[in-house]
């Protein structure tokens, strides 16, 4: 049994704690948060040891791995502390606030040869995985354009401030929402190397952006549009999608379905000419425990499997997460021009 600890018990931390708690190969031995209320609840109802000091938890509990799900500004110190002690580390997205810090962590993880993974869970959704596979097989021919979008109802009116209200702490829509889309674009289509026309728009928030619009150019020279808005209440929950246009057709992909349009039938994959729709019911990755979506369990399964088999993850390594941070940096700089 692997011994696991979790730092930060917000939405993602609690969700990870539950998934890890249910994992047959893992024993959840420590939970760490600064909220007395949350810690007291676990003290009262569970047998897990609780801490308000992450260093103490890491020192005392002899962890095999730790999940860092604290606000982004704490990632650097916490991840570094765990890596230095040779502990496998899963870090929530976005990875780091500055490129220098991110680079240092990537280097440290390599030196220590520990499994390192970031929480870009969309790669564990069957539809996006299928999109990547199809594009890698060249189904659309030469890619000419793409759009990456995410919309949802996080900030839908003007109100008080939280840690998310501070742009220096990674609180806005760019770090929180757009990072997912950027990461998908980067891993499915290729890394963006240039951002232009970037707009960080405030809608209801006073200090941080609620929407991100940008034109991204990839290493391959292909450009496309990034359009993300977390103040859109026409969406019940976060909805992420990618549209990819190629010379042979186009694919529209979200978490529930994959819509493929081909100008000509394609024999190898048995796709007809015209539209083919593939559904998540056929593509979902089976999991033993489900909470909020297969992808959250599947990403932890992947991380645990890498630890048990002593190999590095091919999906969502810190290095890949750092690439996303670099694009975020490009967009911020471009928006100031």
């Amino acid at each position, binding site marked *: 049994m692997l011994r696991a600890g979790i730092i930060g*018990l*917000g*939405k993602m931390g*609690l*969700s990870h*704690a*539950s*998934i*890890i*708690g*249910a994992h047959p190969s893992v024993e959840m031995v420590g939970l760490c948060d600064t*909220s*007395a*209320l*949350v810690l*007291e*609840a*676990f003290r*009262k*109802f*569970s*047998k897990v040891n609780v801490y308000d000091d992450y260093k103490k938890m890491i020192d005392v509990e002899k962890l095999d791995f730790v999940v860092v799900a604290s606000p982004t500004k704490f990632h650097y110190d916490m991840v570094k502390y765990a890596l230095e002690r040779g502990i496998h580390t899963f870090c929530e997205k976005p990875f780091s606030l500055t490129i220098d810090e991110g680079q240092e962590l990537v280097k440290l993880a390599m030196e220590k040869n520990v499994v390192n993974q970031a929480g870009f869970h969309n790669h564990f959704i069957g539809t996006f995985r299928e999109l990547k596979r199809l594009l890698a097989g060249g189904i659309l021919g030469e890619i000419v354009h793409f759009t990456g979008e995410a919309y*949802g*109802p*996080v*900030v839908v009116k003007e109100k008080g401030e*939280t*840690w*998310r209200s501070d742009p220096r702490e990674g609180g806005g829509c760019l770090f*929180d929402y757009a990072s997912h889309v950027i990461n998908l674009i980067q891993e499915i289509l290729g890394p963006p190397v240039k951002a232009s026309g970037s707009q960080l728009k405030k809608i209801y928030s006073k200090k941080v952006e609620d929407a991100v619009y940008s034109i991204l150019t990839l290493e391959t020279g292909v450009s496309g549009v990034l359009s993300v808005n977390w103040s859109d209440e*026409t969406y*019940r*929950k976060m*909805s992420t*999608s990618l549209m990819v246009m190629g010379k042979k057709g186009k694919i529209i992909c*979200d*978490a*529930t*379905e994959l819509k493929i349009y081909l100008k000509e039938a394609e024999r190898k994959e048995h796709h007809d000419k015209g539209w083919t729709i593939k*559904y*998540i*019911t*056929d593509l*979902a990755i*089976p*999991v*033993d*425990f*489900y*909470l*909020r979506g297969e992808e959250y*369990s599947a990403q932890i399964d992947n991380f645990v499997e890498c630890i048990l088999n002593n190999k590095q993850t091919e999906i969502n390594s810190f290095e890949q997460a750092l690439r996303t941070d670099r694009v975020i940096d490009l967009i911020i700089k471009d928006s100031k021009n």
Partner: protein
Amino acid sequence: MRMDKVLFGDNQFFAVNHLSDEKSRQQAIRFKDDDSIIRVLDQAIETGINTFMCTTHDRIGNICNHLRAYPEKYSGFRIYPCMPYAHKYANAVTELGVIGTIKQYVPGNIFSTFTKGGVAYLSKDFIKLMEILIDAEMKMFRGINTPVIFIQNVVVDLILGLKLYDIFAEYDAYIRKKYKAEPGYITMNLPALLGALKIAGVENPIVCSSINKIGFRMSGGIEAYEKCLAEENFRPVAMQVLAAGALRPKEAIEYLGRFPQIESVLFGASSKAHIQETKEIIEKFIH
């Protein structure tokens, strides 16, 4: 008391579609007005359906107002509330954190409700906090017959994974005591939940879970589910029986017919013909 064989669900009204975000948007447009929801509910009642299983979505409050306004027309009608409407809290936790969310959604000021010492005092009485949250969610159903009260899968499965099993027992006791109702549990992890409820001392529970012949959203695997349905002592409600539309109603319900323990089938539909058809198939195969 046995539940009805056919429970009418509400996903179609609130833009929940597990197969297509686009379809869910179309649903949001179609059911923009409460009247359009009430019209479909009335059609369901005309086909002989008497139980509506629904989330504690804000708009259900409006539907409840309508039911209360016509007590004779809806005298035999029951609602099985499913709490909480999780996206409301999930979006709030993303923005405000756990404490901020409690502050926002607990009626009055929680930290003055527990006057002596705020958080420190509150932390000694989580069960009281749970009760306040339940009462807040149940407020909209005042005067309406709610014989079974469910907790949503997000909360059930979160508690399950965190192994906070005592909370199930506390929930169970409170629903029986305060609302004179049967507690129900919705889950995506049936085999694991049945084990946990046993540990918590909850006997013969009403458990609603995905049951379909392709194993969609049946975590732990279809074989484990089938074993539970054959051997465990609980009152199963089948949901996601069409596997988000991947199965045709007849083959889907025929499969359920293999498990005589299944007490009810939950489904949602938007047209009278579709409601009628599915109801008839359920009655044919579920005994």
